[in-house]
């Protein structure tokens, strides 16, 4: 291996540090719309992942057979996540409320009920009224 690889490692490391700093700044310091913040964060994350995967893990210089072993994980990831969403995230018939059912009507007794008043879940140990995200107060914020 030539000295170019050592040099490349330093350059890649510099880019990783720079992208991490930019990513943290983008995610915490700006008041952009949520879609813009998330898009930028995902771009930074996958950019950093690509640098680590390609250079640090040496995949750029490896045989194609190793790349072919990793490629099938991409559609499997998509299937695992997006195929579950209709049955999990957006399902009104779940016995124990998760996902969007958390913000349906919650009475003071903490028992989850659907919008029609039907009991849909177990009593919640942290009974709290559903409030809009903009008015949400986190009782555990700041360590209190």
């Amino acid at each position, binding site marked *: 291996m030539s000295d170019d690889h050592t040099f490349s490692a330093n350059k890649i490391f510099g880019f990783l540090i720079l992208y991490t700093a930019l990513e943290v700044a983008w995610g915490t310091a700006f008041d952009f719309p949520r879609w813009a913040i998330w898009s930028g964060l995902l771009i930074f994350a996958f950019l950093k992942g690509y640098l680590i995967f390609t250079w640090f*893990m040496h995949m750029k210089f490896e045989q194609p057979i190793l790349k072919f072993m990793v490629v099938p994980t991409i559609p499997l990831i998509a299937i695992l996540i997006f195929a579950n969403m209709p049955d999990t995230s957006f399902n009104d018939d779940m016995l124990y409320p998760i996902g969007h059912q958390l913000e349906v009507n919650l009475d003071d007794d903490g028992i989850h009920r659907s919008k029609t008043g039907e009991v849909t879940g177990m009593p919640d140990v942290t009974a709290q009224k559903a409030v809009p995200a903009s008015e949400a107060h986190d009782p555990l914020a700041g360590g209190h």
Partner: protein
Amino acid sequence: MSNPIEAYDPAVDAPAHHHPIYDYESGPPVDRGKFAIWLFLATEVMFFTGLIGTYIVLRMGTETWPNPDLRLEVDLTALNTFILITSSWMMVRSLHAIQHGDREGMKKWLLWTILGGCVFLGVQIYEYIHMWADGRRPNVDIFWSTFYAMTGFHGFHVFVGIVWLICAYIAALRGAYTKENYLRLELAGLYWHFVDLVWVLLFTIVYLM
């Protein structure tokens, strides 16, 4: 036509490390160890997909997901991310050192890699103790249960990586790695880089989004 079996002479037909009849390399066109580690890492990708995918699926259906900035120490974890990325870079430096025949440099950078991993894990444990004492526990709500599941399993992977690197360091002290033979060090490095890669995604999805 003579019988090939009867005419077989090991001294002539079977020189060291070669099969007398099937004199070609079978198996994948890469090192078996490298093939195996990448196959293992592909399974680890699916393992973490199950955890992170669960988080994504649950969050996508929730309108009032807690703001991570209010519940988590993002600044401290950002510093921790720097530490882990730096340790990954030091692992690369260690490998490059042995590729140039520099055994002392390889050991030095490997030791720094281990220390970086230990610092990362120590900060994570400190964060866990701090949160647990404040009542931020997995049974409180889905945010905390998914948080502890993802970061806990990743932390366990970091611990396994540290143990692996310590074993590699001990082997390095015994002179196991040379300029011509450093595959096992490279395999340990691949696992360590994977752990770093997963954390890069975890930090973004859990702490910043």
